[in-house]
């Protein structure tokens, strides 16, 4: 199944901004974070189709997964 991944802010560096990839059904947000070498503690938000989801969320065909880094400065 096809899933579009959008990376934001510093996560684009050395990776990509947007890519559509093929995955087997049952793949989770956490699996994709691991594949992209994005450490859990650096993640600010993971969204599927603009809605906040946790790492155990499974993806469906044509989902758009957006991944943002943590922002904490003031």
């Amino acid at each position, binding site marked *: 199944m096809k899933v579009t991944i959008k990376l*934001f802010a*510093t996560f684009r560096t050395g990776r990509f901004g947007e890519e559509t990839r093929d995955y087997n059904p049952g793949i989770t947000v956490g699996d994709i974070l691991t594949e992209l070498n994005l450490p859990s*503690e650096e993640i600010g938000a993971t*969204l599927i189709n603009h809605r906040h989801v946790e790492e155990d969320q499974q993806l469906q065909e044509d989902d758009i997964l957006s991944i943002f880094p943590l*922002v*904490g*400065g*003031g």
Partner: protein
Amino acid sequence: MEEVRSFLRKQAEGDLLPWKQQVFASTFFGLTIGQVEKIALELGFLPSRYQRNRNTISVSDQLRIFKTHVAVIGCGGLGGYIVEELTRLGIGHITAVDPDVFEEHNLNRQLYSSPEMLGKPKVEAAQKRVTEINPAVTLTPLKCAFSTLNGVDILQNVDIVVDALDSITVRLELSDICSEAKIPLVHGAIGGWYGQVSTQFPGEDTLQKIYSRATNGKGVEKGLGNPSFTPAVIASLQVAEVCKIIIGQGSTLAKRKLHINLLDMEIIEIQY
């Protein structure tokens, strides 16, 4: 007090109260500028300094703004701009909390920093500035670090809290204390070209969701630092949220977060 009202009625120009008359009333009747401002607004007179607000903020809304007590937690990059804009908006009472003094690495972005202010407390600089630009506003400076030990006391009698902290850990503590005290919290955070804004009302847990994975108290700002423009953008969005909470207009960022990317000029809405 009737004498003061009578004086203001005579000196008002249309529905505007000129600054000169506000100062005169303050001196003549032995009142603070803020006390005169409150009486004028209650009579339906708008201090002339707010005349360009009037088609956005009514006189009755300006009175609600004046009666509001806002706490700004953190007085660095975000906090300086937030204090400035709240003061010009006409918030009657601001409590500013920050333990730090200005250092050289603050000079690229912190509004109240300057070479001559190096070594001076940030909250004192904020108080000095507020007195200069809008003497009707009372700023209470608290030179201390916000924590679970003093948080409840600091937020006594506060109506709205603005998060301008630089630590995720302390933010989450602030969020808990605001929830407990049933105070709305306007969250902002910055790092490099990026920033985010959200508003959490009592009973919501947006901050816990935003930072559910955070373990070390810092985000991208640790590597990127912060340039001059990012705090100004995010602080302004936070103050717009404060204004809407007070006057009850428009749509706030409740259960939503805006992620702002100034490098590519993208604004993404995230729903929680």
